[in-house]
C-alpha cells in the first residue's frame, strides 16, 4: 500500500457525487484510497473467509475408484470428514509416461465425480428387502416346514402360490427384513434347485470384472463351486466385436489411449470419445497439436465432431460400404497402380493374403472354397502332424510351401519351435500374377446391397457379381490367393482378367467403388476417396501410424462383424496393426483384466474344479425370456445367393440348437435332466457318465435342453445379479424378460411365430410359460429396475466401502479400491455377501445334497486342440464323439457341505495342474509358498494349511501374485514357455522386471504400471505405450488363427453360406421385410416411422448415474428422445413435449429433445434410460413407460455361433452371439401432455 503516491485524477468511475462521497469516505474510515478513487485498500476484515476454509477442511483422503459399468479405471481421491464421505476428485499421481507425451492425469468424468451422491442418497438400498407377497408365503411355509429347503419347495412347486408372488414382481411392496431371512431363502432356493433340477439351473450375471475383480470374482467363485452358470456379458452387450476373433483370433486387444497420441491420422468411426471415453479424450485433442489429422464418422453432429478436420455423415449402419470403397481406393492405388513396398511386405508376413484358396465348382460356376493345406499336397507333406491345419502358400518360384506358425504347428510336439511367423526366406507372391503369365478364372461373389425384385421381397436384395482371378493348379486343385480374391471382392480390376469390373471410381453400377458407396451411405465419393488416400499415405509416410477408433455406433448392429472386418481390412492392408499409433482401437465395453490369470483362477474356482460353467449370455436370455418364440427369423434369409441351401427350413434359433449340439457353443442347462442324476444313472448302469450321455442321446431318452426351453425341467430357476442392471439397462427385449422370465405385466405387442415359421428342431408348447424364474436375487446399492423386479434385494456396499482391484485397457496401470468408510447401515460388500451365502448353502447342503458328481458339458475351446475339431471348417453329420462332434463331457466333484470352506481357501489344482491362459500354463509354486506367509493359512478343517482367501484384501494379493502382469517371475516363466513354442526370443520383454511383484499396498499407494506378459499381445517393454499385436509383429509370434496370421478370408462352411467369407457390405436388417415392421422415413397420420438408435449417454454410464441428481440437473431430468426438427414437425412435436415411441416389442414414454444436430429419419434414445426416474404411464400400454430396451429384442446371427474351428472356437466373452439392437425401427407419436404416474 502506497498512500503517498498521487497522480492527477483522470480516469474515474461513477459520477461526481459518488466520487466526492468516496473521496470524503477516505477520511472517515481506515484504509487507503487509490488516486483515481477507484479502489479502497483495507486491512483485515477477512474473518468471513473462514466459512470456505471450514468447508474445505477434511479428515482424510482415501484412494478408490468406481467398480462397474465404465472401463475408465480412474483413480480417485475420496474425501472424508467426521466419518462422512464429502466429495471426490481425481488422483493425479499416475506414473509418468515420459517427457514428450501428455500424462494420464487427471482421469475422471462428471459421472464419477458425482458418485458419492449415491452413498447417502434416498435411492440407497440400506437394508435387505423382500417382496411382501413372498415374505408372507415363506413365513407361512416355514411354520409348516421347519426346514428352509422344504419350505421353499412347498412354495415353488405349488403353481398357485408360485404364480401369486411372481405376478407381484415389479409392483412395489418390498419390505424390510433381516439378512438372516434373505440368506436363508436364497440358500434354500439354491439347494432345492440343485437337488431337483440341477446346479446348471442356477445362473449368475455380473459384468466387467476388470473394474472390480474381487467383487465380481467372489460371486462367480461361489456359483462355479455350486456348478451354476455364469453368463457372458461382452457378447450380450454387443460390445464384443466378433470380427476380432474372426480376424485376429483374439477377444479384443487394443492400444491404451496414450497411444492415440502417436497416430498421425485418426478416424473416430462410430465412437464419440468425449462422451464415452471422457478421461482419454484429451489425448485426441492434444495429438491434433502434433499435427494429427482427425476425422469423425457419425450420422449426427456429435461431441467429437467439434474436434474433427472432417465430418463424414453416412446413413446409420451403412459404414461397411464406405470402408469397402476406401479399401477399393487403397488396393487400387497402393497395390495395383503403384506397389507400396511396406504394405506388400506387411501383407506377406502378417496376413493370410498370400495363402492359397481352392476354387470350387458350384451351380455351374466357381466360388472361393477352402484354404489349401498340407494335407492336400504330396503324401509326405500330407503325413505331417495336423497337416489339415497347415495352410499353404507359394514361394517366388511358384512351388507350394507350408510356412511355420499355423494352428497345425501349435500343439504338436514334433513342431515345437515352429509356431512362429518366420517365413525362412520365402517371399510369397501376393497375387498369382506375380508369378508371370498364367490362367485366370471367373469367380462368383455374393452381394447384399440390392433392392429385392418385386415379388421376391422374401428373398431379400441379394445378387451375384462375377469377377476374375488369376489361377493355377496346385495339387490337382484350381487355386488362387486370398489377395487375388480380395481384389475381386473390392472390385479392383486388372488388365486381362475376365468378369465385370467398374470402369472407375465414378462407376456406381457394381460394388466396391466410391460412387457405389455414395448411393448407400450418402457420403460424397470425393470425400471417401480423399480420406482413403490420406489414411494410406499417412500410414506409408509414418510407418503405420494411421488409426481407426471404433465404437458402439458401428459395433451394435446385427451385421457388425462384417462392418468391423471392412475396417480391420483398412488398418491391415496399410500395415498399421501392431504399430504404435496405428491399427484398430475398439472402445465399447472392452476391458482388460490385466492380471487375467490370477483373476480367472479365483473367479472360475479353477483351483477346485474344472471346467466352469460359463455360457453365452445372449442365447441364455433368448431362450429363458422366450424371445425365440417371437423370432422365427429364417436363417436362409441371411444366406448368400451362392450358398448351398444349408440353412433351408432353419430359423436362426435352429442354428443355435445345432451349434450347441455340435459343442460349438455352451448352453446351460445342457440336458433335460439334472446333471447330478446323470452321473448317478451312469454309475447304476455301470457306465462312464460320458458314454451314458452319448447312449441316451442316441436312443432318444435324453435331449439337449436348448431343444425345449419351455419344458419346466429346463427353466433357469434361480438367478443372482450383482453389479448389474439387466432389467433397466442391458436386457434387450426387456418386455419379454418381464413377461416370460418373471411372469409379471409387460408391454410385449408382438405375436408369436406362426406354425410355418417356428424352429423345426425345437419343441413348441402352445402355452408359453410365464414366470420361469423361481427366485431373482439382486445385490445393489441403489434402486434400479432390476431391484424393483427382484424377489430379494441385498444392500450392497458402494465402491468407496471396500477393497478391490481395477485395471483397464485404456491405461497400463493397476490400482486399488479402499474403504473410505465402513459399509453403512446394513450394507455388505459383495465379497462378504457371497461368503455368507456360501456358508448358509453349505449348512443346508449337509442334509440335502452331500458330495455329488456333476457332469459338465464343455464346448470346444479356443486356444486348445479342440480348435481342430472341424478340419477345413467342413460341417458334416458324424457320429457323436465328445470333444469332437459334440461337447466334452467332464465329471466334476461337488463337495457341497464344504463349499464355503473351499470358497475361502486356495484349492490344490492351481499347483497341481497350473493355470492356463491363452495356451500358456503358469506354475505358481513359488507364489503359493509366499502367499501362505502373506495371507496366512487355514488353521483347521478339511483344508488346513491352504492359503487363506477369507478377506477381500487377501484375494487381491492372490490375483496380483498369480499374473505375469503384476508378478515378473510368472511373466518370464510364461515367455520362456512361449519361446519353446515359437523358437523366438521373448523372455527379455519381461526380464527387466523378473524380480518385481506388485502388492496390494503398492497399488494403494499409487497406480502401478504393469509388466509385459504373454497374457497380452502388446509390450510395455522399455516404457513404451501398449499397442495390440506388437509382439506378433516384432517378435514373430503367431496370431491365434488358422494361418497364424490376420485373416481376410474365413473358409468355414457357415461363413460361406452367409456369403461372408470375405469382407462385405451388408445393409441394416430390413425389419419391414423380415418382420412386417414400419419403414423408416415414412409417415402415417400423426405418427412418424424412424430408425431407433441407442448411443451411449453423456449423463450416465449405462443405467448408473442416470438416476443421479447432479446428472439429471445438468441434463433434462429424465428420459428424452432426440429427434430432428423435420421429424418433429411432421407430428407436431415441440421441444420437451411428451411423446411415445412404440414397436412390436414394447413402448417407451419420454420427452422430445428437438435439435438440428439430428439427421432426419433417425432418433436417439440414449442408453440406458431406466424406468425409475420420471417415467409416466404409457397411453398405449397403460403401464409404466419402459426403458430404451423395451423397443429392442434379441436377433441371433449364425456366424456368431460357429465353433470348433481354429479362431472360430468358443471362449468366454470371446465368441458368441451378440445382443445387437441397432437395426430396430420405431414409431413416434405425440401423446396427451397430461401424464399420469400412477
Amino acid at each position, binding site marked *: 500500500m502506497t498512500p503517498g503516491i498521487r497522480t492527477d485524477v483522470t480516469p474515474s468511475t461513477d459520477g461526481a457525487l459518488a466520487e466526492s462521497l468516496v473521496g470524503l469516505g477516505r477520511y472517515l474510515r481506515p484504509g487507503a484510497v*487509490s488516486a483515481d478513487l477507484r479502489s479502497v485498500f483495507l486491512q483485515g476484515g477477512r474473518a468471513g473467509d473462514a466459512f470456505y476454509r471450514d468447508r*474445505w477442511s477434511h479428515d482424510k483422503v482415501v484412494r478408490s475408484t468406481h467398480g462397474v459399468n465404465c472401463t475408465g479405471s480412474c483413480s480417485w481421491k475420496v474425501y472424508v470428514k467426521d466419518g462422512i464421505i464429502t466429495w471426490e476428485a481425481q488422483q493425479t499421481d499416475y506414473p509418468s509416461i515420459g517427457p514428450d507425451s501428455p500424462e494420464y492425469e487427471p482421469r475422471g468424468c462428471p459421472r464419477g465425480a458425482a458418485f458419492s451422491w449415491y452413498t447417502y442418497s434416498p435411492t440407497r438400498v440400506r437394508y435387505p428387502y423382500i417382496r411382501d407377497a413372498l415374505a408372507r408365503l415363506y413365513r407361512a411355509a416355514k411354520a409348516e416346514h421347519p426346514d428352509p429347503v422344504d419350505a421353499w419347495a412347498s412354495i415353488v412347486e405349488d403353481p398357485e402360490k408360485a404364480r401369486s408372488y411372481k405376478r407381484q414382481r415389479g409392483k412395489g411392496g418390498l419390505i424390510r427384513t433381516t439378512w438372516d431371512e434373505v440368506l436363508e431363502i436364497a440358500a434354500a432356493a439354491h439347494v432345492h434347485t440343485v437337488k431337483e433340477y440341477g446346479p446348471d439351473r442356477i445362473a449368475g450375471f455380473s459384468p466387467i470384472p476388470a473394474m472390480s475383480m474381487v467383487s465380481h470374482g467372489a460371486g462367480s467363485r461361489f456359483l462355479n463351486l455350486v456348478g451354476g452358470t455364469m453368463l457372458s456379458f461382452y457378447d450380450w452387450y454387443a460390445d464384443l466385436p466378433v470380427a476380432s476373433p474372426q480376424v485376429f483370433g483374439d477377444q479384443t486387444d487394443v492400444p491404451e489411449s496414450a497411444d492415440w497420441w502417436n497416430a498421425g491420422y485418426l478416424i473416430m468411426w462410430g465412437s464419440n470419445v468425449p462422451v464415452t471415453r471422457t478421461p482419454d479424450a484429451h489425448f485426441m*485433442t492434444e495429438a491434433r497439436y502434433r499435427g494429427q489429422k482427425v476425422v469423425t464418422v457419425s450420422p449426427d453432429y456429435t461431441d467429437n465432431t467439434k474436434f474433427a478436420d472432417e465430418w463424414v455423415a453416412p446413413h446409420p449402419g451403412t459404414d461397411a460400404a464406405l470402408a469397402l470403397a476406401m479399401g477399393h481406393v487403397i488396393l487400387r492405388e497402393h497395390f495395383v497402380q503403384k506397389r507400396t513396398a511396406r504394405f506388400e511386405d506387411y501383407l506377406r508376413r502378417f496376413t493370410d493374403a498370400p495363402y492359397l484358396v481352392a476354387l470350387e465348382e458350384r451351380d455351374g460356376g466357381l466360388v472361393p472354397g477352402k484354404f489349401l493345406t498340407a494335407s492336400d499336397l504330396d503324401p509326405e507333406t500330407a503325413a505331417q502332424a495336423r497337416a489339415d491345419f497347415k495352410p499353404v502358400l507359394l514361394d517366388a518360384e511358384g512351388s507350394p510351401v507350408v510356412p511355420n506358425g499355423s494352428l497345425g504347428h501349435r500343439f504338436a510336439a514334433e513342431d515345437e519351435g515352429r509356431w512362429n511367423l518366420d517365413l525362412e526366406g520365402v517371399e510369397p507372391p501376393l497375387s498369382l500374377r506375380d508369378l508371370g503369365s498364367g490362367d485366370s478364372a471367373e469367380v462368383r461373389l455374393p452381394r447384399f446391397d440390392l433392392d429385392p425384385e418385386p415379388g421376391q421381397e422374401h428373398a431379400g436384395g441379394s445378387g451375384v457379381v462375377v469377377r476374375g482371378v488369376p489361377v493355377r493348379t496346385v495339387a490337382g486343385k484350381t487355386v488362387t490367393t486370398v489377395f487375388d480374391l480380395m481384389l475381386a471382392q473390392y472390385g479392383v480390376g486388372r488388365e486381362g482378367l475376365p468378369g465385370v469390373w467398374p470402369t472407375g471410381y465414378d462407376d456406381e453400377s457394381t460394388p466396391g467403388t466410391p460412387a457405389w458407396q455414395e448411393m448407400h451411405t450418402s457420403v460424397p465419393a470425393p470425400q471417401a476417396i480423399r480420406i482413403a488416400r490420406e489414411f494410406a499415405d499417412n500410414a506409408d509416410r509414418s510407418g503405420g501410424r494411421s488409426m481407426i477408433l471404433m465404437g458402439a455406433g458401428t459395433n451394435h448392429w446385427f451385421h457388425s462383424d462384417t462392418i468391423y472386418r471392412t475396417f480391420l481390412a483398412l488398418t491391415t492392408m496399410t500395415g498399421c496393426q501392431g504399430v504404435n499409433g496405428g491399427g484398430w482401437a475398439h472402445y465399447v465395453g472392452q476391458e482388460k483384466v490385466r492380471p487375467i490369470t490370477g483373476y480367472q483362477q479365483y473367479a472360475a474356482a479353477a483351483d477346485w474344479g474344472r471346467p466352469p460353467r460359463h455360457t453365452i449370455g445372449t442365447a441364455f436370455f433368448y431362450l429363458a425370456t422366450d424371445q425365440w418364440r417371437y423370432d422365427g427369423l429364417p436363417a436362409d434369409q441371411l444366406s448368400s445367393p451362392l450358398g448351398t441351401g444349408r440353412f433351408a427350413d432353419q430359423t436362426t434359433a435352429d442354428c443355435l440348437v445345432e451349434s450347441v449340439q455340435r459343442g460349438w457353443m455352451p448352453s446351460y442347462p445342457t440336458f433335460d435332466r439334472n446333471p447330478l442324476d446323470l452321473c448317478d444313472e451312469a454309475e447304476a448302469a455301470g457306465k462312464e457318465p460320458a458314454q451314458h450321455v452319448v447312449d441316451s442321446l442316441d436312443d432318444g431318452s435324453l435331449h439337449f435342453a436348448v431343444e425345449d426351453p419351455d419344458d419346466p425341467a429346463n427353466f433357469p430357476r434361480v438367478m443372482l445379479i450383482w453389479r448389474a442392471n439387466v432389467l433397466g439397462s442391458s436386457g434387450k427385449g426387456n418386455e419379454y424378460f418381464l413377461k416370460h422370465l418373471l411372469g409379471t405385466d409387460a408391454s410385449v405387442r408382438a405375436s408369436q411365430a406362426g406354425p410355418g415359421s417356428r424352429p423345426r428342431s425345437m419343441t413348441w408348447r402352445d402355452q408359453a410359460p410365464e414366470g420361469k424364474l423361481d427366485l431373482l436375487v439382486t445385490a445393489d446399492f441403489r434402486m434400479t429396475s432390476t431391484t424393483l423386479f427382484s424377489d430379494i434385494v441385498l444392500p450392497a456396499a458402494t465402491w468407496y466401502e471396500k477393497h478391490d482391484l481395477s485395471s483397464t485397457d485404456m491405461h497400463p496401470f493397476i490400482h486399488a479400491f479402499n474403504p473410505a468408510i465402513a459399509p453403512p447401515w446394513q450394507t455388505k460388500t459383495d465379497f462378504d455377501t457371497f461368503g455368507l451365502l456360501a456358508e448358509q448353502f453349505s449348512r443346508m447342503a449337509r442334509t440335502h445334497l452331500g458330495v455329488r458328481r456333476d457332469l459338465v458339458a464343455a464346448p470346444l475351446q479356443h486356444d486348445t486342440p479342440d480348435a481342430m475339431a472341424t478340419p477345413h471348417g467342413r460341417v458334416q453329420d458324424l457320429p457323436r464323439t465328445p470333444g469332437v462332434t459334440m461337447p466334452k463331457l467332464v465329471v466334476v466333484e461337488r463337495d457341497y457341505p464344504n463349499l464355503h470352506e473351499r470358497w475361502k481357501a486356495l484349492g490344490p489344482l492351481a499347483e497341481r495342474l497350473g493355470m492356463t491362459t491363452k495356451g500358456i500354463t503358469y506354475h505358481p509354486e513359488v507364489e503359493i509358498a509366499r502367499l501362505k506367509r502373506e495371507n496366512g493359512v487355514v488353521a483347521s478343517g478339511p483344508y488346513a494349511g491352504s492359503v487363506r482367501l477369507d478377506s477381500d484384501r487377501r484375494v487381491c494379493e492372490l490375483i496380483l501374485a498369480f499374473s505375469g502382469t503384476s508378478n515378473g517371475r510368472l511373466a518370464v516363466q510364461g515367455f520362456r514357455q512361449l519361446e519353446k513354442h515359437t523358437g523366438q526370443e521373448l523372455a527379455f520383454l519381461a526380464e527387466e522386471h523378473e524380480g518385481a511383484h506388485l502388492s496390494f499396498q503398492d497399488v494403494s499407494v499409487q497406480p502401478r504400471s504393469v509388466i509385459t506378459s504373454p497374457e497380452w499381445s502388446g509390450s510395455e517393454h522399455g516404457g513404451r505405450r501398449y499397442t495390440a499385436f506388437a509382439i506378433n509383429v516384432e517378435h514373430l509370434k503367431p496370431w491365434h488363427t488358422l494361418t497364424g496370421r490376420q485373416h481376410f478370408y474365413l473358409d468355414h462352411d457357415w461363413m460361406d453360406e452367409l456369403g461372408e467369407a470375405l469382407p462385405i457390405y451388408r445393409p441394416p436388417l430390413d425389419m419391414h421385410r423380415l418382420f412386417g415392421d414400419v419403414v423408416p422415413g415414412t409417415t402415417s397420420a400423426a405418427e412418424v416411422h424412424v430408425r431407433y438408435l441407442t448411443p451411449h449417454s*453423456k449423463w450416465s454410464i449405462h443405467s448408473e448415474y442416470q438416476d443421479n441428481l447432479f446428472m439429471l440437473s445438468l*441434463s*433434462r431430468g429424465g428420459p428424452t428422445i432426440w429427434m430432428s426438427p423435420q421429424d418433429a414437425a411432421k407430428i407436431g412435436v415441440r421441444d420437451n413435449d411428451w411423446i411415445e415411441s412404440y414397436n412390436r416389442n414394447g413402448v417407451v414414454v419420454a420427452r422430445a429433445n428437438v435439435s*438440428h*444436430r439430428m439427421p432426419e429419419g433417425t432418433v436417439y434414445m440414449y442408453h440406458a434410460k431406466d424406468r425409475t426416474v420420471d417415467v409416466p404411464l404409457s397411453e398405449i400400454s397403460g403401464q409404466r413407460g419402459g426403458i430404451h430396451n423395451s423397443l429392442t429384442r434379441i436377433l441371433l446371427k449364425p456366424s456368431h455361433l460357429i465353433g470348433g474351428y481354429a479362431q472360430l472356437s468358443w471362449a468366454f466373452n470371446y465368441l458368441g452371439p451378440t445382443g445387437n439392437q441397432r437395426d430396430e425401427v420405431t414409431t413416434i407419436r405425440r401423446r396427451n401432455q397430461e401424464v399420469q404416474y400412477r
Partner: protein
Amino acid sequence: MKVMAQMSMVMNLDKCIGCHTCSVTCKQAWTNRTGMEYVWFNNVETRPGVGYPRGYQDQEKWGGGWVRDKRGRLRLRSGSRLAKLARIFSNPKLPGMDDYYEPWTYDYDMLVNAPSGQHTPVARPKSLITGKDMKISWSANWDDDLGGSVETMQQDPILRKMSEEVSAEFEKAFMFYLPRICEHCLNPACVASCPSGAMYKRAEDGIVLVDQDACRGWRMCVSGCPYKKVYFNHKTGKAEKCTLCYPRIEVGLPTVCSETCVGRLRYLGLVLYDVDRVAEAAAVEDEHDLLDAQRSVILDPHDPAVIEAARRDGIPEDWIASAQQSPIHRLIQEYRVALPLHPEYRTMPMVWYIPPLSPVVDVVSGSGNDGEDARTLFAAIDKLRIPIGYLAELFTAGDVRPVDAALRRLAAMRSYMRGVNLDDERDDRIAEAVGMTGAEIEEMYRLLAIAKYEERY
C-alpha cells in the same frame, strides 16, 4: 506504477470436450448445500446457446458491468451507487428462477418404499422450491449439445449481435463449449455495486470474495456482475460466488475445477499488473482497444523495472518468481493466443480463453485444396465451421483480427508439428507466417499439447 499480483486462469476452449466434470467437482466441493441447489460457481455452456442463467450476456436487459459515459468516465451500467441506494429494496434487474431454473429432486423414496400396487414404482420430479410435483422444463444446462436448438438457440444474445446469419441446419451445425467461473476482474462491477462493502478483492492475489459476515443480501452484486457469477443463497440470504478455491490456492493447490479438468485445458498462474492503470485501461473509448488496453496493464515480470517496483510494493520474491513462470503470462502476452471474455463489459476479466479451432481442414479440403498445406490452412480460417464473428463477439467485442491471429497461430502449430511428427522436418516459414519462430512454436506446443501438471499450474 503500483504493482499487484493477480491469480488468473486461461482455458483452452480448443481442448474443451464439454464433459462438465469441472461443474460437478466444484458443486460437490462448494455448493452442495440447501439454498444453493441452483448455484453453479462453475458451469459449462454449449455455444451457440443461451447460457446460464438464460441470456445473461444481454446487458441491455440485465444491466451488468460498466459503461463509458460521454466524459470518459466509467459508470455501472445499472446505475450509480446512489441510484442503487435509492432502489435498494427493490432491485428489478435480477434473474428470476425461470432464468436460472427451478431446482428439483425426485421422490426417490418411492423406489424403496412403494407399497404393492398396480404399477412399477417410479421417482417423479418434485420442486425443491415448492415441494410439489412438477414438469421439468428448464435446467442448469438445458440446451447442452444443441438440445432444443429449434426452440431456444436464436435467443443466444451473441447470435443476435452478429451480422452473419446462423441457421439451425444439420449440414451447418457447429458447437463448442464455454466453461465459466467468476472472472475475478481487475475492475469488478460486483464489488462496486455492493452497498454494504461486503465484497472485496484480495490485495495479495486479486481473488474477489463476499464477506459472509458483512453481506446484507441486497443482491446488487448479482445485478452488477455482467457474467452473473454472483449468486444469492436463498437459505442464508447472502451472496456467494466462486472463491477461486482460495483455501486450496493458499496451500499451493490448484482450484478444484482446474485440477479435475480431464480435458487438461485450464492454466492457473499469477500475473503482475499495474493497478494504477486499470481504470484508465477500462475506460478506453473504442471497445476494440480494450483488449490491448488490458494487456498493457499486465506487466512483464522479467522487466527489471517491474521487478524493482514489485519488491517496492511488497510482492514477495517467490510470488515474483511464480509470475515469471506463469503459463498465463505466456499465453496472454507472449503467444497472444488467449483472449478475455467480453472485454466490452469493461470489468477487466482475468479468466481468459484460447478460442476453438475447428474444423478448418474440412473447409479447405472441400474446396479441393490440400487440407494439410499450411498456406491453404491460413486462407481458410475465415471459413471455419464456427463463424469467426461468433468468437469475436465473445472475446474481442466483435473485432475479428485478434481471434483470427490466435487461430492462425494454433493452425500454424498443427502444421509445423505435423512436419516434425511425420518427417522430422522443421519448416520455419510456417512459424514466420504467424510472427513466431520454430522454437517458439515448439514451446507453445509443449505448453498446450504436452501440458504437464507442473506446467499448467
